[in-house]
Structure formats: structure tokens, C-alpha cells
């Protein structure tokens, strides 16, 4: 094998290695997207469950709307038997105006409260998933 043949063989190896890497990378990326999408569905259900719980507790008057901000300000972790990862659930509530903008000075008697639930944690969840609900006091 002369020098030219060796160089050609090396170039061929490089070409096929690059092809192999690009194929595997594409498959890896697609798998990552699928994992992300699956976790997003679960994350959205976590957000729904927290916000629906707030709805239910307000309906039954177990939580007064004046106490919503203090009740739904927490960070907790959630585990599911079917997922190896731990979700971090953060609920942030605030007194706000009718558009959901924070009041410059918190006022417990404000007619509007905003609860934002953010789920993060698993590596497969590429970006934290967030859901917001605006509560209005109607029974005065």
C-alpha cells in the first residue's frame, strides 16, 4: 500500500465515521424530543392538578381567597412510580390587577389573585413548564 492508498483509506474511514455520527446524533435528538414531549404532558397534568386543587378548595371554602397567596406559595418535589426523575413543583401566587400584573403594593383584599405553577426538574424536560390561573373574588 503506497502513501496515496493510505491517505484514501483514511479519508474513507473519516467519511463513514462522520456519516455514522450524524445518523446517530439525529436519532438521539429525536429520542430526546419524544422524551421531552412525554414529560411535558405529565408536567401539564401536575400544573392542572395544583390549580384544580386551588379551585376546589376555594369552592368548598376550605381556603379563603384572601389566604390564596399564602397557601399557594411553595416549592415541593413530586415523584411518580413510572418515572425515575423527580419533579420540582413551584407555586408562586401574588395579588394582582385584572390583567394579572402584580400590584405595586401587595393587598390581601385585592379582588384578583394570580397563581403560577412551574414544573421543572427532569433532564428530559428541556424547559420548565408553567401554567397560570387568575382568580377573581366574586362573592362579596
Amino acid at each position, binding site marked *: 500500500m503506497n502513501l496515496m492508498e493510505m491517505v484514501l483509506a483514511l479519508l*474513507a474511514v473519516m467519511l*463513514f465515521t462522520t456519516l455514522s455520527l450524524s*445518523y446517530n446524533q439525529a436519532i438521539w435528538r*429525536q429520542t430526546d424530543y419524544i422524551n421531552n414531549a*412525554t414529560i411535558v404532558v405529565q408536567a401539564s397534568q401536575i400544573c*392542572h392538578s395544583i390549580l384544580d386543587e386551588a379551585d*376546589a378548595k376555594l369552592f368548598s371554602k376550605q381556603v379563603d381567597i384572601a389566604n390564596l397567596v399564602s397557601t399557594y406559595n411553595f416549592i415541593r418535589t413530586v415523584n*411518580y412510580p413510572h418515572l425515575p426523575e423527580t419533579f420540582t413543583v413551584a407555586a408562586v401566587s401574588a395579588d394582582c390587577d385584572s390583567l394579572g400584573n402584580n400590584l405595586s403594593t401587595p393587598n390581601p383584599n385585592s379582588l384578583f389573585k394570580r397563581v403560577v405553577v412551574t414544573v421543572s426538574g427532569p433532564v428530559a424536560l428541556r424547559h420548565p413548564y408553567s401554567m397560570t390561573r387568575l382568580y377573581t373574588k366574586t362573592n362579596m
Partner: protein
Amino acid sequence: MSVLLDVLGSVIIGGMLILMMMTFQLQLHESAGRIYYMSSMIDHMDVAATKVNKTFALAGIGIPPDSVCVIAATNRVVFKTFWNCNSDTLSATRHLIEMKIATVTNPYGGKALLLTQDGAPMEDLGYIFYIEAMVIKYFDKNDAQTTQPGLVRSAEIFFTFRRDSPWNPTQPLRSNLQVKCFFMNSYLQGA
């Protein structure tokens, strides 16, 4: 002789490279198939969770909170409501809604989540397909786990979705989802 060896060597290397390329192509093809199936499944999971949540939320209309849930089993739930789920309207008669896993033959052979109203499958969401298993945990108004139907105010439902693999039927694709549903009308009556 050396020419023969060169030719043989090139044939072997060329063959290996072609095999490698064929393997890559097949892998890519299979991955694309799985991605296609999974993406539709993810959408299906979301829709199924929304439908189940809605059914639970409309339970117990016009019924005292401690009488809403009739059967609270780990694989089956039956509750009362004055909401007609078929016409999506308030009804003058009381209905019994049941959720359970059933074996279906049409349009595919397998299991599905069956939602019935007074014993007959609901018209628009009677069957939610590709659900293989369902495990339900019940909670009272203070979020303590319970098994007594009279105390049930919310439920955690664990669904296992299953779909045949596009390439290998013996290796189905499974994905799980846990949702929490509330008997909102019971809470509206003070829980």
C-alpha cells in the same frame, strides 16, 4: 496474486460499508416510525386526560357530596350526576356514569377505557382507545387516601397507554400518565 488480494480486500471492505449503510438506513427508518407513532400517542394522552378530567368535573351535579360516588374500586369508578354527558346538558333525570377498562374488538382488538352513561357507552367519548390499564386512588376532602365511596372527593388516575410497535408487535410501545381529577360539584356544595 497481489492484484487478486487487492480485489478481494476491496470487495470485503466495500461489502461491510454497504452493510453498515443499510443498517443505518433501517435504524433511521425504524426510529422515524417510532417517532411518528409516539407523537400521535402523546397527543392522544393529552386529549384522553382532558376528557377524563371533564367527566369527573361534571360528576355530582344535584347530588349531595357523600352520595356522588357509588363504587370506588382501584380499576373502576361509578358516580351519579344530573348532567347528561351525551347531550352535554343539564338533565331532569339522574344518570350513572361508569369508567372502566374493557376489551374491545372494533376498530382494533385490544383494551380501551370505556365510559358509560346508564350502562350504555357515551356517544362522543364512550371509548378512549389505546389505554391498557387504569389504577385509581381516591382521596377525601382533606386529601387523605380513602376507599369509602361516601368520602371520595378526588381521584388520582394512573393510565398505561399501549400501542403496537410499527415494526415489532411483540414489543409494544407503552407510556404512562398520572392525572388528578376532582368532583368539583361536591366541592361547590362545601365538600
